């Protein structure tokens, strides 16, 4: 059994003491930021990227991944207890989870959320293990036109799933792609858009842009209105679900896991989309739809399973194709590139150890999260009462030194400060930042593959539709775009995001 041998190899690495420790640190930090409103996984991962320089690449990725799926747990804790979803993916959990808390069943809701997540995490780990090799072997036959089309699909999907108007999301992708052009062009050696600054010849640093648009811009926007009063907390009494609870939530968790695993795989998919879809599926599948919104346990189990499953399977396109599905994956990819690992199909063959260690660590991390979350839920909730005025200076300190540590220069700190200002104004105009980052990361690759495709075809654009795989991918992208732009879907999409 190839798979068993690979899993054994993975566990061999991920169960080492050092990796266990950093996995723990990752899920611990992840839970903390999940609980804290106003500090998302994007900003945190960006903030901690520089600190992983000193670590082994495997260890660094294990920790960063832990932050991401740990945040899903933490986000649902506050969603249930105080109706304040720490993460976007926990928004639907708050609907029924918080109702359950009001009915004195907070403990049950938390336990079901955690167990559904663990179940989903286990299954989706298996999905990653089983599915990635297939996708990677398929991807080995991909050439420039296929990669170009895949990236277009990824960018279109990112546009569709962004909050707010589609047109602005398209513009943000374009701006991201343009920012990615800054620096010396690899083909001609011409320095583009550097405005004479030698420091810009290698482009805007990835860490600087993510800290600028996520950390700095968010601080500027929130420093004024973050006056947290003490929220009303509901007592956590019994954690044990009744037999009836189990009977109702188990099938919901299974459905959520399947749906989430599938949606995580799609370009542009991720935890938030998965939890929203799972909720509507549960509501439709239920024999008691009227209970939804009144504390239906399926409304907690389904979305919680789905967001965790999707958080994990969204690693698949990034790891096997080198195409990040969402903003967090773009950050993870940046982290890999900082450690000189190019994501793509060759990861499975050349970096077997890294791949399987990361996959198995997710499973271990899910177990740690259960232990971390259920017994200590009271402790986590206390974090919410930390005033923002203590939080934001700490974020600033870590960002400034973090950017400095990239090359021991201060230039990129100024770049980040500038991007923070730009990011603040763009966010004010309701422009999403995640598509911009995705564009920035994919930009150089998109251009490179476009140029290569055009060289192969001698300037004939039809190469993208005459190659079968590329044509299929573009067709999917086109269908997605048409569906979303159609007036009916447009209204529906606005409804979905209006709820959040």
């Amino acid at each position: 059994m190839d798979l068993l041998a690979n899993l054994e190899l993975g566990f061999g690495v991920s169960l080492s003491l050092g990796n266990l420790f950093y996995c723990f640190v990752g899920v611990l930090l992840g839970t903390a930021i999940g609980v804290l409103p106003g500090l998302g996984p994007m900003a945190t991962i960006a903030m901690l990227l520089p600190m992983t320089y000193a670590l082994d690449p495997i260890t660094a990725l294990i920790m960063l991944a832990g932050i991401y799926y740990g945040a899903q747990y933490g986000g649902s804790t506050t969603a249930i207890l105080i109706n304040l979803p720490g993460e976007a993916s926990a928004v639907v959990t708050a609907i029924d989870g918080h109702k359950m808390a009001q009915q004195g069943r907070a403990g049950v809701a938390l336990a079901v959320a955690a167990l559904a997540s663990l179940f989903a995490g286990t299954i989706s780990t298996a999905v990653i293990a089983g599915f990635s090799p297939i996708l990677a072997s398929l991807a080995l036959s991909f050439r420039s036109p296929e990669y170009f089309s895949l990236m277009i699909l990824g960018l279109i999907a990112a546009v569709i799933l962004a909050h707010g108007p589609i047109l602005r999301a398209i513009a943000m992708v374009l701006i991201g792609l343009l920012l990615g052009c800054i620096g010396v062009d690899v083909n001609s050696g011409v320095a583009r858009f550097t405005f004479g600054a030698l420091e810009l010849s290698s482009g805007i640093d990835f860490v600087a842009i993510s800290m600028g648009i996520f950390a700095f811009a968010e601080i500027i926007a929130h420093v004024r209105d973050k006056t947290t009063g003490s929220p009303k907390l509901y007592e956590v009494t019994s954690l044990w679900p009744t037999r009836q609870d189990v009977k109702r939530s188990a099938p919901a968790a299974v459905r959520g896991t399947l749906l989430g695993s599938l949606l995580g795989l799609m370009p542009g998919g991720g935890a938030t989309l998965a939890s929203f879809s799972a909720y509507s599926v549960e509501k439709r599948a239920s024999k008691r739809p009227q209970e939804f919104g009144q504390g239906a346990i399926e409304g907690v189990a389904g979305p919680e399973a789905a967001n965790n499953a999707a958080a994990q399977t969204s690693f698949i396109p990034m790891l096997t194709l080198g195409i990040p599905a969402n903003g967090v994956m773009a950050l993870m990819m940046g982290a890999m590139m900082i450690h000189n690992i190019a994501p793509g199909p060759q990861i499975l063959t050349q970096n077997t150890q890294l791949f399987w260690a990361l996959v198995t660590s997710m499973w271990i991390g899910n177990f740690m999260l259960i232990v971390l979350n259920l017994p200590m839920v009271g402790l986590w909730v206390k974090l919410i009462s930390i005033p923002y005025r203590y939080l934001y200076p700490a974020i600033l300190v870590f960002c400034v030194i973090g950017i400095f540590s990239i090359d021991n220069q201060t230039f990129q700190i100024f770049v980040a400060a500038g991007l923070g200002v730009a990011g603040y104004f763009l966010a004010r105009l309701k422009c999403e930042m995640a598509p911009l980052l995705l564009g920035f990361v994919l930009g150089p690759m998109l251009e490179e593959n476009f140029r290569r495709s055009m060289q192969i075809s001698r300037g004939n654009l039809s190469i993208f539709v005459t190659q079968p795989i590329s044509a299929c991918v573009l067709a999917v992208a086109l269908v997605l775009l048409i569906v979303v732009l159609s007036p009916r879907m447009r209204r529906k999409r606005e409804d979905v995001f209006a709820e959040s």
Partner: protein
Amino acid sequence: MSNILARALRTTDGQSGLVFMAVGIIAVVGASQYPIGTLARMGPGFFPLCLGVMLIVVGLISLAGSLRSDDVIAEPVSVRALVVITLAVVVSALLLLQAGLLVAIPALVIISAFASPSVKWLPLLVTTVVLTALAYGVFVWGLNMQIPLVWW
């Protein structure tokens, strides 16, 4: 007529349309400085030129949409936070190499505190000391980074 226009420019559609067009124009002007080449042999200017043109088009559509939009921006710009936070980051970046970590971090923390309308000095002092110690502990002691500590 001018009323409608003025109102349109106060909507998110109108303002973001202007921003997109401005960025697009910068991109087009910048890209045209570099060799464009042909589709088969693209020069360094080709790709950014395409992006710039697309951005201008998106900006125009957005501007057109603003005439029917009623999403007027009501929220004022938080000038204070904007200026203070940016200033704090820039000053600390300037101080980092010139004066050292143990000066730059306190400067960053203290300046940034003025982003909120009321500054409480005792908690600020504690935060400054704790964060400076933390920065030293994590980056210099823990990660062994080469940062000048103080200027002498």
